[in-house]
């Protein structure tokens, strides 16, 4: 188990290192002058522009040798300093992002967990059933391939505009201030439902298909045939198959996380939901490089943390990793 974890943690450190390096490398080795680009897009008065130019040239640290820039960059990161946003000048990028993160978690955590559970259950149920295989499963293939933002747009249009059941913009009613009142909670949930549902549905399709295929592999394994030949009831064989098929699905969760996060970003944009996705859109429209780079780092850190949690869960679920046999 120690070996398993130390290897994983080493990979995570390496990943973080690579991510920070990319974050540092890209602005310096891309064509064009980032400071110039940034200021030309931000529409501000000329005297303010001079102050900002001075700040950003220094912040990018373009006046010292490369190796020093790189070290400075790391130092700034360990101080939690990701620069100052152009779009929300003079607010710190970290503050802007911290305000958005809770909304991301509110969408991602429930949609990922619930769709994983429901999708796996349904996939296991549908496997080797000719009727379901020909009716509902083709739909799940489509769901898995559906671009997140498209489903979000469709739902916003049909449920939000045509039928007018749900609001389609923001995280709560614009006339309200966040508070712990009942009215606010209702407003929050009503705004939360559509982005959550569209994320849930697409992910559900992916897990259902994955589980169906995995169960079919397991049902063809020798142990399943052996159980069957012993006269074990179908439900028991399925139960064992399900348990074995779960493990790759847990690993799959870690691997699929990046895609889900990307989907959540696009979904937030559709619903103007104030998470990191919406922030990114503003950052891109305003050429706010510090904010873009900050969002990138936060997404990577978030995914790394989630990966680590999944690793811990894996060790709890799979006894082989605990006994020093290599799991994955």
């Amino acid at each position, binding site marked *: 188990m120690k070996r398993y974890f130390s290897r994983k943690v080493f990979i995570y450190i390496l990943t973080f290192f690579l991510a920070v390096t990319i974050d540092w490398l890209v602005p310096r080795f891309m064509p064009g002058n980032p400071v110039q680009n940034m200021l030309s897009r931000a529409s501000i008065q000329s005297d303010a522009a001079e102050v900002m130019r001075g700040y950003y040239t220094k912040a990018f640290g373009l006046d010292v040798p490369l190796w020093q820039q790189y070290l400075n960059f790391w130092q700034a990161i360990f101080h939690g300093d990701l620069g100052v946003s152009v779009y929300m000048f003079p607010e710190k990028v970290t503050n802007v992002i911290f305000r958005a993160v809770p909304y991301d978690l509110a969408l991602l955590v429930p949609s990922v967990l619930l769709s994983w559970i429901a999708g796996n259950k349904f996939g296991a149920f549908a496997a080797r059933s000719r009727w379901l295989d020909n009716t509902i499963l083709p739909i799940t293939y489509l769901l898995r391939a*559906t671009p997140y933002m*498209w489903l979000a747009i469709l739902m916003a249009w049909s449920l939000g505009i045509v039928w007018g059941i749900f609001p389609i913009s923001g995280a709560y009613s614009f006339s309200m201030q966040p508070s712990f009142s009942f009215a606010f909670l209702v407003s929050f949930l009503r705004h939360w439902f559509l982005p959550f549902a569209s994320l849930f549905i697409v992910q559900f399709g992916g897990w259902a298909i994955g589980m169906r295929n995995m169960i079919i592999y397991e049902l063809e394994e020798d142990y399943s045939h052996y159980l069957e030949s012993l006269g074990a009831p179908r439900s028991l064989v399925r139960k064992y198959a399900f348990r074995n098929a779960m493990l790759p699905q847990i690993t799959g969760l870690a691997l699929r996380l990046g895609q889900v996060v990307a989907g959540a970003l696009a979904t937030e944009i559709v619903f103007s939901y104030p998470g990191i996705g919406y922030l990114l859109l503003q950052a891109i429209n305003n050429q706010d490089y510090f904010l873009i780079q900050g969002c990138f780092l936060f997404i990577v850190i978030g995914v790394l943390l989630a990966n680590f949690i999944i690793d811990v869960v894996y060790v709890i679920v799979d006894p082989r990793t605990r006994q020093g046999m290599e799991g994955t």
Partner: protein
Amino acid sequence: MEPPQSKEKNEFFYFALRNNKLVIGLIVVFFFLVFAIIGPFLTEHDLNERAGPRNQPPSAEYWFGTTTFGQDVFTQFVYGLRAAFIVGLVGGGLATIVGMMVGFFAGYHGGMVDELLNMLTNTVITIPKLAVLLVIAAYLTVRGVIHESIVIGLWSWPWAARAVRSQTFSLKSRNFIDMARMTGMSSMKIIWTEIAPNMMSYLFMTFVLQFGGAVLAAATLDFIGLGPTEGISLGLMMQHSFNWSAIQLGIWWWFVPPGAALALLVGAMYLMNVGLDEVFNPKLRER
């Protein structure tokens, strides 16, 4: 039913043609491919020209209606389909090729080489592809479909590398590889003449998945606003319709076709992949 005994090829087609998933998937992909190739010849409009009145619903003259700027949605759609195929072929192809290289070397050589390449694969796989694309695309002021595909391809290979590595690993210990090694073949030659041909089916399936993944990744990138700065794509169509309030105005013909095409095309790819799996692996066939 007994498959004909004559040749291995015939057996493949025998099962392939009887696999509904594969046949349906192929038909859909082929349909879109033909559409993407001949579509631009079916329209007399230019991509950005003002073809008619604004916000027209689909009609005999404007098959898919017009946008807020009076552009013909059908014209944008067929050119967008072309862009989707380019991204899929270039991005998916590149990812498969790089993944193959890494997978072959890691799986065949094992030891230190494997350890290092594996570490690289695991590192790259953990960083969300879209996040990297975002940072890179944000700094590129001029972007084309090809640039986009290349960047996507260069960040999507780990999936392919993993799959190819594990396959190579299991093939490596077979007798015929030992024989080849005894004859003094170079490892490059063994990989190309002995290992690769034995997993062609697998490589093709990997490519199919990568194709779908690249198309979806590009669509998301385009929607966020980091797509090609010139030309059109299905993702860009959705972005434009969204930016110009097509949802609120109910101009559904602007955003339904591009997303539907993406879902159908990529869904057909996934369906094909499972179908191929069943054709190549007799155990998985329906009973």
